[in-house]
């Protein structure tokens, strides 16, 4: 997502990208070279502290959003942070309070709110010409590889793209007590007990992570073999061992 922002910001007048933080020094250097960014580091704080930084855009793993947002706001920077803004309500409330205290913008990257079709529907609802009678929303988990939207391997698993209670939803090491539920890696599997008679939420072998996207924004990878309508998730997930 960093690349998406770099390209979007390049089209806006008088915006300069001062620094780029990456997971490793090597990947930071490569990114900085590609987009002619003067400073890169694997240390986020060092990037925020560079002279001339007014705002920070965080496209980091979900469980880091809260701490990093608080860090940037506490240094007087405006923040745009990826979804989900946090993994729980108290963290979200902290982030909002920190933004108010700093008097800085804290924006959440809910890209859908900025897409033309969504805006048009919203406009019609506000105008009173669109009346909702019935809405069908289905979100499918399609991916069979743990890759980002550019098809590159991810160093973490985006918990928005997976049922969020599974143990690989965090960027840190897996909790060994729950590791039997699923593993991130070349032999990652879904729990075998998760499959119901309709074949929902398969217990089949998957290569490396799996994930979803609403099809209109991001590509799907691999064959679509199982579909999991969103409205069924609650029921399906309840059958999973280890879920609380």
């Amino acid at each position, binding site marked *: 997502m960093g690349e998406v922002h770099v390209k979007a910001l390049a089209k806006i007048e008088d915006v300069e990208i001062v620094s780029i933080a990456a997971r490793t020094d090597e990947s930071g250097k490569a990114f900085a070279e590609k987009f002619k960014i003067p400073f890169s580091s694997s240390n986020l704080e060092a990037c925020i502290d560079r002279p001339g930084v007014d705002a920070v855009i965080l496209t980091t793993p979900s469980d880091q959003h809260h701490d990093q947002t608080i860090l940037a706001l506490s240094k007087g920077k*405006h923040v745009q942070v990826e979804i989900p803004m946090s993994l729980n309500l108290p963290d979200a409330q902290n982030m909002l309070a920190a933004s108010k205290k700093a008097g800085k913008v804290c924006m959440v990257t809910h890209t859908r709110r900025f897409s033309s079709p969504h805006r048009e529907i919203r406009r019609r609802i506000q105008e009173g010409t669109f009346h909702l009678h019935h809405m069908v929303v289905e979100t499918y988990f399609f991916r069979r590889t743990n890759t980002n939207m550019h098809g590159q391997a991810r160093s973490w698993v985006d918990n928005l793209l997976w049922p969020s209670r599974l143990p690989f939803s965090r960027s840190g090491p897996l909790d060994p007590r729950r590791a039997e539920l699923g593993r991130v890696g070349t032999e990652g599997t879904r729990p075998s007990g998760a499959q119901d008679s309709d074949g929902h939420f398969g217990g089949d072998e998957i290569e490396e992570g799996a994930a979803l996207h609403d099809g209109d924004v991001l590509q799907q990878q691999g064959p679509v073999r199982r579909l999991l309508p969103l409205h069924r998730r609650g029921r399906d997930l309840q059958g999973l061992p280890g879920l609380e």
Partner: protein
Amino acid sequence: MTDSEGKDVQLDPTLAFDRQDIEFVAAIREGRDPESSAASVVPTMVLLDKIDKAMNS
């Protein structure tokens, strides 16, 4: 996008990703809350928290 009669709906061609960062920069420059501000997302987090508690209690 097409409507229920299959007719094309004319849409602004600006990409969502572009419009999003335009809004971020504009909100900073104008000293206002952006669309999709943290403040506008927290009510949804409150709702999710209630659902989470209802499902897991």
